[in-house]
């Protein structure tokens, strides 16, 4: 490269040749138009309804937002959503990191099996898995039947319709989204680094803490972000496993629109949820490349 004579000093790295637009780009027009019509337009319409649909006539375009934030119950839903999402993320991280680490050090064959153990639930129906938890946790479910039969307890212990139940179900469903990005990053860490650390006198745990852990942090950040963002939008699982006091934003939106037919407040909540999601993504994008977070799902 040193032989190449710079023509101008605009950029140090060697640029690709060619025009700014090429013919391949034309192929993207149709799918983009499709997404625009059937995905973006609906999102825009929802956003607009939050400032155009009102329960009572009003002159204030943001009356719905005022109404929403004036209600303590609504704020509780918001707070609860954050609380449950945080709990689920912590559980996923606690289980997911060691699991990804294990996948990274076992023989490739075993790693393949461990990967399938993550992929099967990743792709199987969220409704079916929530239903299965219902069958296990409810008062006449597997756990309580067993406890009653073996006379450990006299009456069913509350498992379903508790925050614990929601958290169990959500963590199980979200765990693959934690494991896959972490594993993707760990797999790219050269094993020689840890060996070099050992050679330089680091005992195994120090080698892990000082070398491997920092190198795997981008995966941890990606997984944490992904799980948290997805948890914010959960609907089916809290609806089937939680109590009314565990209501999350998505349930609130669904019931506003379906039962109360209050599109104003429903779409207001939707805009808030969307805003929260993007806020988390924007903040996170300062620390990691978003495409890394979502890209790692591709290798699944």
């Amino acid at each position, binding site marked *: *490269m040193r*032989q*190449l*004579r710079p*023509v101008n000093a*605009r950029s140090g790295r*060697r*640029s690709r*040749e060619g025009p700014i637009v090429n013919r391949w780009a034309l192929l993207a027009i149709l799918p983009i138009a499709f997404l625009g019509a059937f995905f973006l337009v609906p999102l825009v319409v929802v956003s607009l309804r939050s400032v155009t649909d009102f329960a009572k006539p009003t002159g204030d375009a943001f009356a719905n937002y005022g109404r929403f934030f004036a209600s303590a119950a609504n704020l509780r839903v918001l707070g609860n959503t954050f609380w449950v999402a945080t709990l689920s993320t912590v559980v996923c991280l606690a289980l997911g990191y060691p699991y990804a680490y294990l996948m990274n050090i076992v023989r490739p064959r075993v790693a393949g099996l461990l990967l399938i153990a993550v992929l099967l639930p990743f792709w199987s129906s969220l409704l079916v898995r929530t239903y299965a938890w219902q069958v296990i946790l409810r008062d006449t479910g597997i756990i309580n039947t067993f406890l009653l039969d073996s006379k450990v307890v006299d009456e069913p212990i509350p498992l379903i319709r508790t925050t614990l139940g929601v958290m169990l179900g959500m963590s199980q469903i979200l765990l693959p989204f934690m494991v896959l990005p972490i594993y993707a990053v760990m797999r790219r860490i050269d094993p020689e680094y840890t060996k070099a650390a050992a050679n330089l006198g680091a005992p195994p745990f120090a080698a892990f803490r000082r070398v491997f852990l920092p190198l795997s942090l981008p995966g941890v950040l990606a997984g944490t972000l992904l799980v948290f963002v997805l948890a914010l939008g959960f609907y089916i699982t809290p609806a089937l496993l939680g109590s009314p006091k565990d209501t999350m934003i998505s349930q609130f939106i669904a019931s506003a629109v379906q039962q109360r037919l209050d599109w104003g407040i429903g779409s207001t909540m939707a805009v808030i949820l969307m805003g929260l999601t993007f806020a988390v993504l924007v903040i996170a994008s300062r620390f990691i490349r978003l495409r890394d977070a979502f890209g790692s799902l591709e290798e699944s």
Partner: protein
Amino acid sequence: MSALRGSTGAAGGATTDRPDQPDRPALVLRGLAKSFVDVQAVDGVDLEVRQGEFVTLLGPSGSGKTTTLRMIAGFTRQSAGTIEIDGVDMTHVPPHRRDVGMIFQNYALFPHLTAAQNIAFPLEMRRATRSEIKRRVAEALALVKLEGLGSRYPRQLSGGQQQRIAFARAVVFHPRLLLMDEPLGALDKKLREALQLEVMHISRQLGATVIYVTHDQEEALVMSDRIAIFSRGRIEQLGRGEDLYDRPVSLFVADFIGESNILRGRFERDGEGGWLARGNLRWRVAAAQEDRAALSDGSAAAIVVRPERLRIVGLNDPAVAAPGVNAVEASVRDALYLGSIRKYELMLPDGQAATVRRQVGGGEREWQSGDRVGLIWAVNDAVLVADPNG
């Protein structure tokens, strides 16, 4: 779509049946240039290649040789200049209509097709009949001595076999030109040397015109009729291997091809002729060299002497004062035995190093590290070039 050309007879004859204008060059590049957004990769290349000639583009990486090759193939559009193949301007001809065979560095064999299907591909593109495809594929496989491996997939072939299949695929449709981009670069040394000869022989046998890109000077010297030395997007020198080795036109070529002793200094002229002066050392320059280099008095210059053209003699040896000989006092720093030759590393009085290679068994005296000696060379064995860094 170009029609299938070439004889229907034996595998040979890529050029024999060509429309008969044997004098017309196979390839002409005129003022060819390519600039990318921020670099000038190729900067005015002129080259004329005869029918059936084997020309190598040799140069360090980034010197523009591969970009030139890709422009000939049509993968990259030139920024300026023209490319003519068989007298036809190729500027607006897309790659698939240029009728140019190319062998890639990693062979680019289609992994989802068998060896035979790979070779058949260009024939299918030219709508050859089924029976002709079958016959020509068999011929091509025979040409590269891989009969019986046609049904293998590329991944089931060794590196050398893949290389041969790539060669067969590039010649089976009798292209006007055969382009090769470091086709042997991925192979180990022994196999590479064997294939150099094989590629050269088959190309000659087919009468194919070959443009070959490499950064390996030995490969270039072994295979080529002519070599074009590339530097900074230009052809620095074009010629036969001997020309480049014995008569380099620049310091770059002298340094790039083979091992050289480069003695830098200033060019001076007096009543007796030209000299290269360096401190209080002065060496005579041959009149022919002086004419060729056409340097002005006092300009920075260097003389280049190949290590095997240097001789070591005793300080009092009469050869030191012989006419037509340049001499300088030196001390032997290292005396190395390399089997067929001895290599001496010497130090001149001003601290500059010089390398001498002598055949073992020529009855010459052996020198030891620490010996004080005279270093001599015939005035006619040194080449005078300008020193752009001087």
